């Protein structure tokens, strides 16, 4: 009993992720001595470490929506396109309408996109990867229609604040992401919803027979993902004070899936962790920022990224852990 009280208990779940993030931070500060430096610039924290959290915010937001979907054995490939749509709507309305109206329209569009995906998957029984592929392709076209293929810029400082402003000394995207994390945690883990999601992912038929409203939950989870993606799109557009329909959120669906997977959520569904998914997004961004700071030639970017991802995933592999245990046991 007393032993338990004094031992420093590290969370068993999430150890590989936390260690990976710390190692990447350490490598970054080795490559760039200024990495851990923080100072206050115009009333907000300023430094590479802040950049990691700030630039990681859109992918973290996407991961928050993606994690429950993957836990239900689904996937949403359309989040990048939904980002582009929401950004395009926000940027086109920003200079002529009040901020509230702009946000409602952009978030509403994201919600509609999510509902569309949810209906295709839950009611029409389409494979999630196919159902969301439709919007992934068409959604970017919709965004291009809204912007007429141009980069729509705006001067509305209220909207820009969401991307490049600060709150409580932190860049707004960080605060927004934290708020969304807490909100999602409260909804999902504060109720039985998380359990029902995991049950549906584990065995959808058994859950339905046991009285779980799997269809409603599926639609709701996709709608939530659409909402998160729309928020990420607004943040991305607000950051550059313009909507670039061709490039906003391009390939970010893959980063979001990667973040969720790095966070230990299995693509086979059944369990998920929102905190670790956000941590996964931070790992990806810490890596990106590290590459940018390192001064390596840009041709190396993708190779370095692939190696780090491989290392993180290997560290989580149960087979590999089993192998290590086996080797240790063999020793006399």
């Amino acid at each position, binding site marked *: 009993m007393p032993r338990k009280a004094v031992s420093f208990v590290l969370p068993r779940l999430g150890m590989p992720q936390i260690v990976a993030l710390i190692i990447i931070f350490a490598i970054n500060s080795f490559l*760039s001595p*200024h*990495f851990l*430096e923080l100072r206050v*610039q*115009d009333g907000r924290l*300023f*430094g*590479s470490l802040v*950049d990691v959290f700030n*630039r990681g915010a859109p992918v973290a937001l996407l991961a928050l929506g993606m994690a429950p979907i993957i836990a239900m054995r689904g996937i949403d490939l359309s989040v990048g396109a939904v980002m582009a749509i929401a950004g395009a709507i926000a940027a086109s309305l920003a200079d002529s309408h009040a901020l509230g109206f702009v946000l409602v329209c952009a978030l509403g569009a994201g919600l509609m996109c999510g509902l569309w995906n949810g209906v295709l998957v839950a009611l029409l029984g389409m494979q999630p990867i196919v159902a969301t592929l439709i919007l992934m392709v068409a959604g970017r076209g919709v965004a*291009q229609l809204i912007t*007429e*293929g*141009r*980069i729509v*810029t705006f001067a509305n400082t209220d909207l820009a604040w969401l991307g*490049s402003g600060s709150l409580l000394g932190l860049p707004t995207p960080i605060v927004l992401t934290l708020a969304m994390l807490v909100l999602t945690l409260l909804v999902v883990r504060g109720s039985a919803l998380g359990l029902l999601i995991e049950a549906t992912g584990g065995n959808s038929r058994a859950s339905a027979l046991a009285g779980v409203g799997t269809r409603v939950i599926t639609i709701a989870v996709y709608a939530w993902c659409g909402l998160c993606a729309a928020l990420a799109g607004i943040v*991305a557009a607000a*950051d*550059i*004070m*313009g909507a*670039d329909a*061709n*490039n*906003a959120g391009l390939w970010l669906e893959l980063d979001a899936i990667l973040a969720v997977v790095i966070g230990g959520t299995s693509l086979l569904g059944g369990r998920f962790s929102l905190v670790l998914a956000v941590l996964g997004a931070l790992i990806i961004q810490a890596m*990106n*920022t590290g590459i*940018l*700071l390192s*001064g390596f*030639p*840009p*041709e190396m*970017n993708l190779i370095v990224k692939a190696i780090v991802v491989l290392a993180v995933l290997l560290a989580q592999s149960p087979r590999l852990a089993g192998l290590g245990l086996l080797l240790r046991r063999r020793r006399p």
Partner: protein
Amino acid sequence: MVQPQQALPEARSDLRNGETPMNFKALNAAVVICGALVCSGAGAKELTIGFSQIGSESGWRAAETTVSKAEAKKRNINFKIADAQQKQENQIRAIRSFIAQGVDAIFLAPVVATGWNAVLREAKEAKIPVVLLDRDIDPSGKDLYLTAVTSDSVHEGKVAGEWLVKAVGSKSCNVVELQGTVGASVAANRKKGFEQGIAGHANLKIVRSQTGDFTRAKGKEVMESFIKADGGGKSICAVYAHNDDMMVGAIQAMKEAGLKPGSDVLTVSIDAVPDIFKAMAAGEANATVELTPDMAGPAFDAIIAYKAKGTTPPKWIQTASKLYTGADNPQAVYESKKDLGY
């Protein structure tokens, strides 16, 4: 001149159906007369030119379409544009349909460099000259087109580099570079050209170079990291970006870091999109090298001369890479460019 040709096969097919040929001959004659009337009204023979455009891949592309329409109108050319939505098969289909329509010339902005020989040979057999716009194709197709109107992206980089050499003078200057997408030939060429431009001036040194994927968001992110890696960006003297969009992002990053782009940090980029002129007018950008959206204008002139006098244009028509700085009334340039569709 095209209309009678189009009318003939119809008349023949109707003959085969056993209908009275007289009416169709009359109709045919009427068409010819109408055609002649239109032509004499226009003063000269009206040319019909088909343009297979890539699609809406960027603002520059949209501006190119707008400008080429305007240039066609100026020269009284019947101009047909086919949007290929970034697919080669659509472009090949469009070229075949232009050949079938018997246009006087075909403009092609090739989406990729290879795979054109078969369809261009068909155009050559139909004696329809093809002009490449903005991009070149694989050298094996050299004798299948009349001329290529393109910008020299190495030269663009060189103009940017030479401007910076002049602007900096003899003081030492650390330059950071925002590259285009890795593997894009434009990015490689603009990098090479800039290095040529600053060659022999040891006071200018490229200290950092990363890719910003030609986008504003990545340009901003990469510039943020450059500033931090430098410990606040105090030793960065100039930024060179392979396109204006990345520079617009970089300017935001510099402002957020408390630097003054345009005065503390010199900026030079390429493309001359409207938003960089806005920044220039606000004193936050220094120079840009224009990639002109008017590729069709020189192509029209080449075709008109070729049709009228048979002058064969050179195999490559290089467009001008004009340098714009704060002294060129950026506000006025912005106003003139903002409605082109960028």
